């Protein structure tokens, strides 16, 4: 047999292009007629914010590579320049699809549902014109800072991601050249402005920039407005902190936050009808190439649509709100620790409530037997109850150690605030580790009981964030197994700067051990197949782009291991390559909830091993982050996790399957019953609780 070169770059997909395909799948949700209108609007808004982040981080980083003349090729054998070209082409097509969805499908549909969205002030009627003019003078005018450019005033700094209006002015008095002026659309004001409408039961909105555009002459009196168009600049936001230099990481990040506004411009969005001269000025001043300019056929920055989702009174245009169900194992009067002592507890969010996780910290904070609480926090919600209880615990004299990851992208500013709050309460706050991002999700409660110290641990696949827990699908386990408790203590010792333990019982940590463990687990399947056993791997994650892992998966597939992957986002693995990946299937589920859990199943010759954790199969997770992957030990829990994987593999409504040509298509149902995994889980969680409350039987029993 010919020896296969598994390193062949043709076997791998570029991660950026794969990512764009993911955003396309989200866009397909916005185009799906079976989905309620406002949900579709939300999906469209998500594609837009996704793309923004993608530009600021990924594209920016590729630009950095080009600037630094970094010549190394990516997993698919593309140089940075080649990638940028491909991305440019793909995003242009993508934007086209976005706006055609918006203009051709969603706006008319909104209109038929009595929601008017006016994107051009010229279309306002007289009454509305009067309203917006008054609105402008009362609310907008006072906060605007118009800036004109002339010989004595240089081109101002246009801040990253802000929406602005550019205009060409002409002096009324002199016969001078047209002058450039710009004004920022204030971020502090609501971009969606409700205006009166003709029909009483209709709702009409106009975008703020249109109101400003209409009243621009009030800002530049004595000048004539030749033309005015909105625009937005995207700048390089990905920075790498030189941690060797920084004596104080916290300070360094605060400095970088200010710097981020001043990065190099990498994308300019303008309205497609923009005046050429005006565009020329912008292009020159922002030092942009033509490929970096995007002419947008509609309102710039569609994230504003998420605001529309929140308007009241249109519940009929949304999914019925799902209420996370109670966790059966905790539905009693006992305290959470007593419940955990009964056996490990698995919680599947958002189908089941996040409340037990909050309760875990809340009860620990007040429990006199609790000595210490230790937790890692990556991204927490704005008004997090967990932060409150951690602070309370410290005030109650518990030893509270919190690792706050300041490097969580775009969250730094927010994180610093509550980190300081915790510190004031007396918690020991660790501000991340030098050179590593702490992505693991672990909480440890140390309790002194009759029989000695007992440790309760919560391990999860998602962040300790009570608001995202309503939208992200994640799994978590509560346990008081001694082996895991010991490991958890060791994790926090390591995070506190002490040496690693001599050995681990159950947990597998990145950056040092996790990669090898996964490779070992995959290779074990290969060996099993070679020894005549069955080999099967099911892995669910957000992204798959690690070369070494993919290569090993290819080797496993070639050896005859059956591999089923559920990868929501980026997937650099290609399916259906003869002799390389014919035994691999890849599907992506994009649904109402954001698929977020990471579950890894290995058949292991019948002695099934299941792991869950915080890590994707990405180099950054395996090499540059502190991640924890933990085994599901109890057999009952194992069955439940397997069930989750099986239902997702059966999904034929929200799942799209990757084809050998790189496209994702809907599953061919071939007459089978429709399975929407997320809805299935919702129903299951509900019926579980219902069944339980029935069995309790709250009825009076008459005597006979």
């Amino acid at each position: 047999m010919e020896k296969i070169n598994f390193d062949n770059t043709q076997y791998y997909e570029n991660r950026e292009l794969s990512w764009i395909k993911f955003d396309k799948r989200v866009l397909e949700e916005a185009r799906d007629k079976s989905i309620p209108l406002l949900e579709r609007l939300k999906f469209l808004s998500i594609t837009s914010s996704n793309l923004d982040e993608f530009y600021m981080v990924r594209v920016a980083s590729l630009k950095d590579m080009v600037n630094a003349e970094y010549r190394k090729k990516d997993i698919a054998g593309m140089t940075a320049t080649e990638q940028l070209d491909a991305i440019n082409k793909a995003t242009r097509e993508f934007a086209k699809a976005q706006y055609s969805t918006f203009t051709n499908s969603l706006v008319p549909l909104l209109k038929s549902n009595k929601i008017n969205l006016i994107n051009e002030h010229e279309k306002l009627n007289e009454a509305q014109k009067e309203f917006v003019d008054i609105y402008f003078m009362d609310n907008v005018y006072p906060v605007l800072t118009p800036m004109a450019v002339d010989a004595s005033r240089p081109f101002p700094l246009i801040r990253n991601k802000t929406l602005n209006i550019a205009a060409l002015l002409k002096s009324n008095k002199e016969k001078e050249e047209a002058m450039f002026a710009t004004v920022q659309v204030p971020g502090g004001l609501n971009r969606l402005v409700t205006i009166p409408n003709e029909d009483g039961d209709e709702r009409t909105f106009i975008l703020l920039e249109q109101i400003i555009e209409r009243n621009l002459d009030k800002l530049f009196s004595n000048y004539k407005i030749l033309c005015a168009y909105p625009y937005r600049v995207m700048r390089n936001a990905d920075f790498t902190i030189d941690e060797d230099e920084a004596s104080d990481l916290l300070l360094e990040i605060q400095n970088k936050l200010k710097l981020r506004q001043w990065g190099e411009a990498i994308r300019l969005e303008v309205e497609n009808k923009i005046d050429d001269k005006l565009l020329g000025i912008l292009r020159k001043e922002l030092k942009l190439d033509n490929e970096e300019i995007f002419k947008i056929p509609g309102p710039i920055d569609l994230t504003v649509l998420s605001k529309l989702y929140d308007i009241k009174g249109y519940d009929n245009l949304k999914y019925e709100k799902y209420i996370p169900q109670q966790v059966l194992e905790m539905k009693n009067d006992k305290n959470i620790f007593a419940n955990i002592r009964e056996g490990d507890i698995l919680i599947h969010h958002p189908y089941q409530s996040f409340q037990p996780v909050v309760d875990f910290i809340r009860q620990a904070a007040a429990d006199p037997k609790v000595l210490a609480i230790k937790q890692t926090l990556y991204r927490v919600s704005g008004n997090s109850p967990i932060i409150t209880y951690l602070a309370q615990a410290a005030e109650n004299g518990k030893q509270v150690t919190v690792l706050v990851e300041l490097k969580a992208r775009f969250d730094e500013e927010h994180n610093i605030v509550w980190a300081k709050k915790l510190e004031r309460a007396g918690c020991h706050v660790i501000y991340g580790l030098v050179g590593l991002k702490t992505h693991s999700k672990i909480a440890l409660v140390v309790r002194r009981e009759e029989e000695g110290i007992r440790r309760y641990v919560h391990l999860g696949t998602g962040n300790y964030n009570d608001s995202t827990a309503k939208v992200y699908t994640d799994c978590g386990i509560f346990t008081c197994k001694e082996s895991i408790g010991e490991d958890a203590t060791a994790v926090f010792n390591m995070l506190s700067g002490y040496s690693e333990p001599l050995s681990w019982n159950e947990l597998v940590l990145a950056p040092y051990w996790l990669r090898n463990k996964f490779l070992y687990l995959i290779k074990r399947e290969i060996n099993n197949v070679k020894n005549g056993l069955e080999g099967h791997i099911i892995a669910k994650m957000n992204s798959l782009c690690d070369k070494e892992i993919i290569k090993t998966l290819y080797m496993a597939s070639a050896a005859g291991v059956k591999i089923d992957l559920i990868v929501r986002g980026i997937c650099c693995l290609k399916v259906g390559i003869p002799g390389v990946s014919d035994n691999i299937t890849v599907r992506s589920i994009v649904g109402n909830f954001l698929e977020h859990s990471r579950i890894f199943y290995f058949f292991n010759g019948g002695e099934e091993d299941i792991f869950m954790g915080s890590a994707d199969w990405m180099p950054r997770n395996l090499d540059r982050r502190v991640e924890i992957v933990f085994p599901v030990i109890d057999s009952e829990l194992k069955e439940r996790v397997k069930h989750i994987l099986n239902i997702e593999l059966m999904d034929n409504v929200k799942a799209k399957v990757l084809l050998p040509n790189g496209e994702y298509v809907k599953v061919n149902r071939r007459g089978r019953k429709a399975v929407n995994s997320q809805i299935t889980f919702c129903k299951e969680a509900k019926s579980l609780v219902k069944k339980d409350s029935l069995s309790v039987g709250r009825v009076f029993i008459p005597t006979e």
Partner: protein
Amino acid sequence: MDIHTFAAIYIGSYEISLNIYEISYKKRIKKIDNIRYHIELGKEAFSKKRLGYEAVEELCSKLSDFSKIINGYKVDEYEIYASAVLREVTNATFVLNQIYLRTGFSIKVINNSEHRFISYKSVAGRAGFDKIIKDSAAVVDIGGSGTQVTLFRDGELVTTQHIGLGTMKIRTLLDNRGITYSSYCKQMEEYIIKKLETFTSLYECIVENIVIMGDYATEVIRKVDKNNKENVVKTEKFVKYISKIQKKTVEEISKELNLANESDPFVLPAILLFKNLALSVKSKEVYVPGANINDGIAYNYAEKNKLIKVTHDFEKDILSTAKELSRRYNSYSPHIDALCKLSVKIFDTMKKNHGLGKRERLLLQVSAILHDCGKYISLLNSPQCAYYIVMSSEIMGLTHLERKIVALTILYNTYQLNEFEYLSQKLDHDAYLVVAKLSAILRVANALDQSHKQKFSNIKISIKERELIIKVESFEDISLEQTLFDDKTEYFENVFSLKPILKEKRVYLEED
């Protein structure tokens, strides 16, 4: 259940560590937490003989973190030990005071024998240890500044020796010589072999098992045999593995052993020591218990406070070392046994008169066993020589003070006891009294076997008013003993205000 929470802190040459234990009669000693922090105090301590400002600063800050953790666990008691690092620096007093002022910790600086004994306890205190030493074994404890080798034969401790081969010392010695890596490695091994040769030529070293204590040993054994639960491997495999990896660079070895430090400077000296120690004692199996000094501190504490059941007899170790030492200087004889028995008998009878305890009784035995060893060097200056022999020998389990008491007891068994003022540099008041009492007893016992012929049988000792009455039966002429008795007992009278009286009952054996 009655649970005692205990914290043990140890300040080592390149690491400080804090272990939290739960001690209970039922579960014995259970480790709850293990926190280690890498800080190379030894580097400065061994080369400059002092600890600088930065090191003290870092040490204090970490110790105050430790103090917080200890409080977090609400421990009942804690003990902090430091060894070579604080023993060898000239500014130890100030460093200790700084630490005390900033953390509230009073650190006990232990000398080598105490250190070795405590870490020995961490292993010997485990169930199953007596099985390992049943035939013969060498317990080696590799530290930053030195290596302790303890030999066992037939379940008894034979000798314990400190060899100046520590991982940090070796590295510091051979560092920065501007040589290639391979010759650096070779030099290091040569140096180790040379040092070990001296030891193996002096002592009968061939044993069944070698027990290795020290950093990296667990990592190595885990690599040698992955599925090993007992932590035992064949020496052959162990040596073969180390021979294989020693050729790699320090980075590669660190990676191979999965060490936290990607380029651990002490790993090479450590594995070379493991290998050559195992080779020099020609053991069949290598046992790595994975215990460290903190475990020993906890064991020591638990034993002292009677929190656990003791499985290994550490006093037996002391006596067997003493006997072995006595044998080494050709002084072990029936006389020694007789003297030992006699002095203990007197000691036990006099409980109320001397007010000493079990530990002093043991010291008396050791003194009796070793009292004659000086004759090997010089017949004339025997007591002086014995004193020096004892003072330079390590007896596992005796503290330095106890060793001094033994040495002085032997000295004053013959010489006249000096005034306290004369000895106050060496001893405190209490220890001085112990020396006086023990040497007085030893002298009387010795007088009873002056001929070294064990002429007496059926000795009965009792106290009547101010007299210590020793009734003996003998069928030989004991006039020698009688004559010398009064001479030798004057000192005893001085110490105890008791007059020893020798009463003889002549027995005549009826011949067939």
